[in-house]
């Protein structure tokens, strides 16, 4: 087990390196710079800023220097927020995105898996059709449509919630729903499909033949196996949710990391972009690893030492 984890972490290093390299050269070769947007600076001031941040050195030297700093855990200073380091900004913003993401993830898991199981237990009935139509609606209402619509109806028309902000508990309801719907819908469809597939397996017949009560057959023998595909998509999904949604954070004016990243990309805040991209990538790698461990625990037939 431990050797598997170490191996996976070692495997992740080249991937992360490729991501950093690609991002670094992509943003540096792009036209424009971090100091363009402000009021036109004098040439001298511009030169001094560039020199201060080391942007005047040859590109490759900057690249190796960045990697060196990274090795020591230093993501560098933000170019747009003088006086703050990138790590400071990320760790200030991420708790908000994480909180929202976790709520949405739990909500999606709860509703998605339940709906999928219900639909699969009564296939091709009105319950199945209506649940699956709901799921399809959820998939076809992207967050930038659903978010504003929820805002319009529940915050502006009925005035049950504040239209924006992240202060009181009720402020968190609409963003959580907006963020959760797509995942819930996807999970419902996947759960239903894999529950139906599991039904025809031999061990299900055995369980029924043994005379186990129905709920035991479906939930202990069926669901445990049917959850495998659910788990494998929920890892990357969770990584995506907690790293912050650009859309939801923009629509509801939530000061999270997602909105910040888009701003950094627009502002050409080089170190900020690299820092956030790296942070997202590490999250994804971590959750994929977590997923593999959970999968092995759920299904002992997957031999962790053999699978790479």
């Amino acid at each position, binding site marked *: 087990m431990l050797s598997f984890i170490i191996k996976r972490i070692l495997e992740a290093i080249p991937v992360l390196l490729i991501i950093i390299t690609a991002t670094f050269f992509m943003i540096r070769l792009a036209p424009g710079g971090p100091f363009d947007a402000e009021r036109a600076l004098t040439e001298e001031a511009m030169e001094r800023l560039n020199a201060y941040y080391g942007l005047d050195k040859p590109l490759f030297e900057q690249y190796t220097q960045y990697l060196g700093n990274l090795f020591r855990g230093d993501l560098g200073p933000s170019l747009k927020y003088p006086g703050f380091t990138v790590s400071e900004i990320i760790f200030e913003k991420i708790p908000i995105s994480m909180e929202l993401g976790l709520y949405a993830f739990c909500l999606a898991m709860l509703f998605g898996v339940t709906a999928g199981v219900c639909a699969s237990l009564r296939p091709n009935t009105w319950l199945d059709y209506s649940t699956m139509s709901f799921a399809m609606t959820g998939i*076809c209402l992207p967050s930038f449509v659903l978010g504003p619509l929820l805002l319009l109806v529940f915050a502006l028309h009925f005035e049950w919630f504040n239209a924006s902000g992240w202060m009181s508990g009720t402020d968190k309801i609409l963003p959580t729903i907006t963020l959760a719907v797509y995942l819930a819908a996807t999970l419902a469809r996947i759960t239903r499909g894999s529950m139906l597939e599991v039904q025809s397996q031999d061990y299900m017949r055995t369980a029924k033949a043994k005379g186990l009560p129905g709920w035991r057959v479906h939930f202990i023998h069926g669901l445990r196996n049917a959850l495998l595909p659910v788990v494998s998509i929920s890892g990357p999904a969770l990584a995506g949710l907690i790293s912050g949604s650009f859309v939801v954070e923009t629509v509801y004016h939530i000061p999270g990391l997602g909105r910040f990243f888009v701003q950094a990309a627009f502002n050409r805040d080089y170190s900020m972009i690299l820092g956030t*991209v790296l942070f997202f990538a590490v999250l994804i790698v971590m959750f994929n690893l977590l997923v593999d461990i959970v999968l092995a625990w759920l299904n002992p037939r997957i031999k962790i030492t053999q699978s790479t």
Partner: protein
Amino acid sequence: MNEADSISPWAQSWYRLKQHRMAMLGLILLSIIGLLCLIAPWLTSYTYREQNIDLGAIPPCAEHWLGTDTLGRDLFTRILYGGRISFMVGLIATAVSLLIGVPYGALSGYLGGRTDRFMMRVVEIIYSLPYTIFVILLMVVVGRGLLPLLLAIGAVEWLAMARLVRGQVLAVKEQEFVQAAHVLGQSNFKILSKHIIPNVLGTVIVCATLTVPSVMLLESFLSFLGLGIQAPMTSWGDLIKDGVVTLEEYPWMLIFPSIFFSVTLFSLNFLGDGLRDALDPRVEAAR
């Protein structure tokens, strides 16, 4: 000989598709919206860029069926023109993903061995990148507009196609008729193009149908961030973005584009589901 055997597989699939009520509904809705967008220039007397501040932001009325936007442009017209862009992006990017993904996946699966491992490793690495982030970066770097948009979307959408085709090819290439072709001395190219690819076509069609909505979604997402289509041209995502700004005062500017957009996605997804059932009954309905 059984009579059912004499019906061609395509006719059988079409028959199965017709049984799928939601898929047929999707097909009909899609045809209507597609046709409206196609004949938009002849359908309305307004143009998508003609501004008239005096007529700014009027709610739906007889003159302007779906109202006008803040610059006095007819919203119905703009939705149809936006739809043309959204559909166009969806179709072109899907075509690109087919052009790259199918040969790549087929080659990888057919050649097997070390080549296969290398080619799939490349796909996996690109797959593991945080891809919305990369599309955003790419758009920021390359600049805004239609061509960069297509490039950015095409660059990520072919991956799923390549993986799927490879999996199918792996299964098909072990079958007898492929071995027979080998024995008859046909070239690898001929075997791939005449024997293997036609046999994975069903799966490819299903995947392509489901790629179109995901591309349209991505396009709208980018337009929503202000990275997609640039004014005065428009797309559904762009219209929704504008609608969000004026949400409180003029809700129709958000509602109508959202309806068109969601109904289209709905139709495409149901059509894809129906096609999956029709073309490959063995594949489970949800993945």
